[in-house]
């Protein structure tokens, strides 16, 4: 039995994220503009894939992830502990937490606040993104688009309101 697959054109819907933000992200992506000094500094601390760095708690904004992704084409993730934010540099299709970060996430010393997607105007969490929440026993997290800056919460559903 085949699946029914219907895709309505998204062009008929105006994705109404902030226009200035869309333009700003596009300018970063196409190299017309560079990151501001603050975001350059963030990126310098996590230059390579799988690099991560600790910062003051709540010093990293979700939109920072979008700009870093627009600049590099790589996914970034924000983890948060009691006293710190951790910025993680992934690759073009994933963020992979291993070693110390894995242990701290499992022990719930860190929570997964947000991660970025490079190529989606409306960010859509993947099956793996949801499975990660289950493994972490975390109800929800956020995903942000590096194209539009649109941010969405995604959640393991434990019951729909019928």
């Amino acid at each position, binding site marked *: 039995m085949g699946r029914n697959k219907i895709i309505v054109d998204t062009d008929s819907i105006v994705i109404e994220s902030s226009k200035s933000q869309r333009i700003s992200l596009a300018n970063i992506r196409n190299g017309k503009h560079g990151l501001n000094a603050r975001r350059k500094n963030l990126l310098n601390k996590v230059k390579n894939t799988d690099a991560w760095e600790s910062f003051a708690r709540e010093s990293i904004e979700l939109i920072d992830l979008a700009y870093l992704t627009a600049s590099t084409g790589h996914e970034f993730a924000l983890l948060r502990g009691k006293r710190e934010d951790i910025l993680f540099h992934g690759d073009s299709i*994933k963020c992979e937490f291993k070693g110390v970060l894995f242990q701290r996430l499992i022990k719930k010393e860190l929570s997964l606040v947000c991660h970025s997607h490079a190529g989606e105007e409306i960010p*859509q969490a993947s099956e793996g993104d949801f499975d990660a929440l289950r*493994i972490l026993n975390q109800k929800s997290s956020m995903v942000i688009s590096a194209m539009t800056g649109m941010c969405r919460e995604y959640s393991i559903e434990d019951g729909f309101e019928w």
Partner: protein
Amino acid sequence: MLTYAEAKKIGIRACVEKLGRKFVEKHKGSSCTSYGDCGTYASCFVGVSDRPRRKFPAGVIQLSSEKKDKLPYRVECVVNYKTERIHFLECVLPPADSVCDSESLTGSAKV
């Protein structure tokens, strides 16, 4: 005029109904939602998997945006706060014998 909370509820329900309530209920343990406030509308998403739960390599948690990692059955819609209309953006539905739903791709929140 809908609030974000009202529109989100309407949109999620519309997505569930598009997928089929029985199908979503059958796979309750692997049903997932996503939603956001987009200023003039709420974006809503419900996804369901009937695949065996993937296993990450030991000691690894992975977040992936690869197309192959998208939920196999999913519905994405937006609900306009002012008009209360629902517009479906993506519907990847389970086989016909798993669900019975309407074929309409647009609708009113009041239906």
